[in-house]
């Protein structure tokens, strides 16, 4: 029979290792550190087409993550998609005439929203709408356009 002292030591080691493993899963494997948008304010934007944008997608400015998409809805009056974003409270100086565009990371990667800063001196506040937007590029439409342009080109003269 194992003595009480060493038994307690082993159990303590076991529990500590288990909690350490959980912490490793949370911080090293998961995104507990990066997914928190602190003190966020909400901004909405209308897009003609959101493509493959998903809830929780990143919102970036100059390639740096400043928030995330919190909801995607449909506006039946304007036939447009309404995207609600949580922007980190540390970045309150986004000009009102900034452009929000849906971009793709890499050729087949996830879609995210990229902000291009405008020149106005007034800044976006919580609940306001970004007026200038650029929709997602849909690959099929692009291919269709290329084919259409090719067909309209004058035949090369011989």
């Amino acid at each position, binding site marked *: 029979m*194992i003595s*009480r002292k060493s*038994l*307690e030591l*082993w*159990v303590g*080691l*076991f*529990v500590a*290792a*288990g*909690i350490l*493993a*959980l912490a*490793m*899963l*949370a911080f*090293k*494997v*998961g*995104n*507990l550190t*990066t*997914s928190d948008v602190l003190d966020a304010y909400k901004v909405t934007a209308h897009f003609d087409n959101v493509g493959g944008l998903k809830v*929780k997608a990143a919102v970036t400015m100059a390639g740096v993550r400043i928030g995330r998409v919190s909801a995607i809805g449909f506006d039946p009056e304007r036939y447009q998609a309404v995207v609600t974003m949580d922007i980190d409270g540390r970045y309150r100086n986004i000009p009102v005439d900034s452009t929000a565009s849906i971009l793709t990371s890499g050729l087949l990667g996830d879609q995210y929203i990229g902000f291009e800063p405008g020149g106005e001196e007034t800044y976006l506040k919580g609940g306001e709408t970004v007026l200038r937007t650029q929709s997602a590029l849909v690959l099929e439409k692009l291919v269709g356009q290329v084919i259409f342009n090719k067909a309209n080109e004058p035949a090369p003269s011989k």
Partner: protein
Amino acid sequence: MNTLRTLGGIVVNGVERIGRAAMFLSEVVAGSWTLLRRFYLVVQQVYAVGVLTLLIILVSGLFVGMVLGLQGYNTLVKFGSANSLGLLVALSLVRELGPVVTALLFAGRAGSALTAEIGLMKATEQLAGMEMMAVNPVTRVIAPRFLGGVIAMPLLAALFSAIGVLGGHLIGVGLLGVDSGAFWSQMQNGVDFHDDILNGVIKSVVFGVVVSWIAVFEGYDAVPTSEGVASATNRTVVYSSLAVLALDFILTALTLGEV
């Protein structure tokens, strides 16, 4: 006529057993409160079912992670996305393999031992002896073992997943040449704390309760002979494995259905 009667008898017996098991569980949970004053009894059982199961969990976790690394790499490299290997390994481990394989190993290593121990205590009339001395065997013997299993299982599952990710890293980065930075960053981008890790933890807690419950009930309910203990041990492993796999499907359907 007789076959119908046998069928009815089987159904009635089964329902009776389930009812007994449910009443037994409520008795065990009620008995657990008094254990707060004698926590050393639980610590002893955490050692027996947790620390002594650690080695098999760590070794199998390492190998499962290494196999995932090899298999995943060979499939992903065909699509030119070998960099997502970390994501694949981590998601498979955290969501499914960690809780499920740990619960199956736990049922085989710790659950069967619990059943055999309690069954033998019953067969040698130790439990009856305790009752003679006005000691409630449920609070003194059963509840610490149940609680020990419930505490140990999530910790074991977390250790399994963590060492599995390290095993996948060992094979993917060390042997197959996946970029280490891409391995970790893709993993962190794709694994969500709430949707993936917390769900895995909830799964392992549920499995811990179910496996420990089946193990202590089968032991307490065993026919007090050597054959009775043997078949009770057998039933523990079979029932807990089936229960874990079925519950895994239900829990996965519930959590993925919301998305």
